[in-house]
């Protein structure tokens, strides 16, 4: 169905090709997953299928890409529109019209289908994707999962033979991701659609793949094979595979179910062990090392909470975003805020940093009322890295950004740069923040926020768009910060991250706190939020591969 013959793509002005020697064939009706670290050209491969690379992006494509027998060299994206449906990373920039129903019809209108056919297919697609109740809704009022479903639906209505998806579940909460994946599953099974998809969150998708294309590094030859074979050597892999590698299982299990069936001996070996209370202990133990030399007040007895919300309620645009939320964060504690898209996680973070004024109740961070405090004073009490770290960056070089951060925080010149050097040694001074990778940009924003040395650090969706390596680096950085006494509150959909880092998990639903307790208890209690290792080794209390590894080595 899709055929790449010796394809290399070189973008204009680039010294090396973005992808090289791609030679693969995707048969009809398969779900193929493209995996690899950040920046290896996954999006380039996906774009080449729909003809957007190079017709839209520029650059030179050598070799030949054919889709359903059509050569993308001679067919422009619009002439492939009836065989390829492409959904990019950000569904919002995909929408042309403003209501759900019109959006589903748009592609068919462009192709000139007959009105009765259009009507039928819109109704079918509304049912297939569970959007019937939302048909007249304005797209901007939908939740993230709903928008993603509308975006998929909008390319499905012309009945394309091939569906190309770039990170369809990265921004979604676990339940919404399941919804989207269930839809894809149905398309592959019932309609025989060929699906080509890139995704960083492998733990969500790898079990659905028929084949996996691995792009091991920039400019390296891609390799395609059965998921278990590819995962055995892949530099990026989900926890279930990592555990399988650790335990030496062969063939590698890809699903929690397969792993559980093989896990009996492992469970036996781990019997009686308990996870090292490594991170939780850091709170009480004296900080071993001070990375940022923050002067920490050692009060005897109970430490003063760095943030406290009491029956906090927030109303936004006539919507009750938060109701009666109580939250106390003590120094050195890492709290994960979880819950589905739109549950009020970002609003709670916004209230803690003064972006959102409470409509009733009180919120205090570091003894100050955040929305009444001057921004210049507030940065010394609390720092937030927003969902899109780019929002924090204004300057056109890394050095200028750091200098501005020192000025904003009234810190010694060079503070921010020194911090950045420790967090991210490789970054050059004269780079433009826009040219950094997602992970690097996040770290830069983190360094900017940390320049003012806030005792409370807030992170909104920090792992979105990060590959496993970048995530591991971020985890290590946050661990060190927590060990130094920084309190960290992060809103995340990433259950693995929460399991790895958080001492406490706070679960939000429709603006209310529905669970608040030690992460091991909260995440294991709810299947949607349980990490894979916990599911495999239940009822034993292991949460991460690192814990298991440590226990086996003991």
């Amino acid at each position, binding site marked *: 169905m899709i055929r790449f013959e010796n394809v290399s793509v070189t973008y204009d002005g680039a010294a090396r090709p973005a992808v090289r020697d791609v030679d693969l064939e995707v048969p009809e009706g398969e779900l193929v997953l493209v995996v690899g670290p950040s920046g290896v050209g996954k999006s380039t491969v996906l774009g080449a299928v729909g003809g957007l690379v190079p017709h839209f992006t520029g650059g030179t494509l050598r070799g030949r890409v054919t889709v359903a027998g059509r050569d993308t060299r001679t067919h422009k994206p*619009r*002439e492939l*529109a009836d065989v390829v*449906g*492409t959904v*990019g990373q*950000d569904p919002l*920039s*995909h929408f*042309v*019209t*403003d209501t759900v129903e019109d959006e589903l*019809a*748009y*592609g*068919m*209108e*462009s*192709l*000139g289908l007959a*009105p009765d056919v*259009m*009507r039928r297919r819109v109704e079918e697609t509304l049912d297939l*994707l*569970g959007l019937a*109740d939302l048909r*007249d809704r304005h797209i901007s*009022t939908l*939740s*993230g999962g709903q928008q993603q479903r509308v975006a998929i639906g*909008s*390319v499905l209505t012309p009945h394309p033979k091939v569906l190309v998806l770039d990170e369809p579940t990265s921004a979604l909460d676990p*339940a919404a991701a*399941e*919804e989207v994946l*269930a839809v894809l599953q149905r398309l592959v099974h019932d309609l025989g659609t060929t699906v080509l998809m890139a995704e960083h969150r492998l733990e969500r998708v790898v079990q659905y793949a028929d084949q996996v294309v691995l792009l091991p590094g920039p400019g390296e030859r891609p390799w395609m094979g059965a998921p278990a074979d590819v995962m055995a050597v892949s530099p990026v892999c989900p926890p279930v595979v990592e555990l399988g590698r650790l335990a030496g299982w062969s063939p590698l299990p890809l699903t929690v179910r397969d792993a559980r069936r093989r896990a009996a001996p492992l469970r036996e070996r781990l019997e009686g062990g308990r996870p090292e209370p490594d991170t939780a202990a850091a709170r009480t133990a004296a900080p071993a090392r001070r990375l940022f030399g923050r002067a920490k007040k050692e009060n005897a007895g109970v430490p003063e909470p760095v943030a406290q919300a009491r029956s906090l309620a927030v109303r936004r*645009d006539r*919507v009750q*975003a938060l109701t009666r939320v109580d939250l106390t964060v003590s120094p050195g504690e890492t709290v994960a805020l979880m819950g589905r*898209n*739109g549950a009020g*996680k*970002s*609003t709670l973070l*916004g209230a803690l940093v003064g*972006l959102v004024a409470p409509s009733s109740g009180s919120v205090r961070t570091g003894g100050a009322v955040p929305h009444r405090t*001057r*921004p*210049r004073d*507030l940065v010394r009490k609390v*720092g937030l890295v927003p969902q899109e770290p780019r*929002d924090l960056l*204004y300057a056109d070089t890394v050095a200028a950004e750091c200098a*501005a951060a020192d000025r904003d925080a009234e810190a010694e010149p060079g503070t921010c740069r020194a911090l950045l050097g420790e967090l991210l040694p490789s970054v050059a001074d004269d780079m433009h923040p*826009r040219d950094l990778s997602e992970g690097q940009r996040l770290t830069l924003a983190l360094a900017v926020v940390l320049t003012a040395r806030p005792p409370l650090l807030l992170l*909104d969706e920090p792992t979105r768009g990060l590959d496993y390596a970048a995530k591991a680096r971020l985890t290590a950085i946050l661990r060190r910060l927590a060990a130094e006494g920084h309190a960290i509150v992060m809103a995340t959909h990433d259950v693995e991250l929460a399991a790895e880092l958080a001492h406490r998990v706070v679960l939000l*639903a429709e603006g209310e706190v*529905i669970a608040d307790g030690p992460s091991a208890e909260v995440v294991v209690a*709810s299947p*949607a939020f349980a990490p894979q290792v916990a599911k495999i080794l239940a009822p034993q209390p292991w949460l991460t591969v690192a814990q298991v590894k440590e226990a086996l080595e003991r």
Partner: protein
Amino acid sequence: MRETDRSGRPGLARPRPERGTPPAGVPVPRPRRALHPGAWWLWALALGTAATRTTNPLLLALLITVSGYVVAVRRPHTPWARSYGAFVKLAAAVLVLRLAFAIVLGSPIPGTHILFTLPEVPLPDWAQGIRLGGRVTAEGLAFALYDALRLAALLICVGAANALASPSRLLKSLPGALYELGVAVVVALTFAPHLIADVRRLRAARRLRGRPDKGVRGLVQVGLPVLEGALERSVSLAAAMDARGYGRTAEVPTAVRRTTAALTLGGLLGVCAGTYGLLTAAGGSYGLPVLLAGLASALAGLWLGGRRSVRTRYRPDPWDARAWLVSASGAAVAALLILAGSLDPGSLDPGVVPLEPPTLPLWPAAAVLLGLLPAFVTPAPEAARDPRKEPTT
């Protein structure tokens, strides 16, 4: 799908149906299709036309009330519909500005009722004819008020059209040959709300850096990132549109293509010549026929040009009896006021010199009330659903 919704969210306190959904088993009544957007625009523009025919403040206030009432009861629950408030504010600003100018710069209306006298600023010779400060007369103020009220009413009518039927819905009804132009306008129209959202987000982010998030400086500093973001979004939207088949064209024979070009060009020339003829005294005889012929030829060109577009239309808004009624009610208001203006100009343009209180002329007022018809013949908008805005993506 709702089934999987529930099973897919175990562990949470309660299952959640899709927002705004009635409990399972209750059938959702399909609302009748909305009125053709063209009808709303015709109605509102006709009311606007009527407003330009009079300076009677009572009639103008009645017009504003009529359009405001219809908007209040018939505006759909979409983000677009909220633009009405912005238009009302704009109209108020026009009113205030016009009065302020009349006070500061004086008014050409000779008046005898002096309300108060501002200190007059002496101006040099070259600025002759301009006055700063000086006497402020009741006549001058009344004249300015009537004049501004007329413009305000016109603006509010346009706002009503915007609120009742978003321009993008109207553009969907354009003929095929103009479709691509229509899409360009629609994209431009959605650009502005996105831009405003971006500015808000980035200004909030300034606070996180410890900079003040208010004031003009903040706005200037976020300008560049906002424009960058907007540009990136436009490029990815263009890519998405291309990938979804925007701009596909059908093969048409060369003869048809040439005929289209000739008809359109000739038609436009004809329209120009005809208009010129109509406007000059000499061309009174040939003006109208040439204009009509040009118009016909241009329309034929458009129709023929539509054959190049392969596009079809999904559920076009039907132009039904209600649409006729709505547009006719607007047209009737405009026509009756024009008629009243020629029969009895005094009541529609109350004099300011000598100053007299305006009276409400009875039958033009009754004519304006005809504009209320849409409030009764069109379907009520759907009940408001939870317009919950998702703060996260």
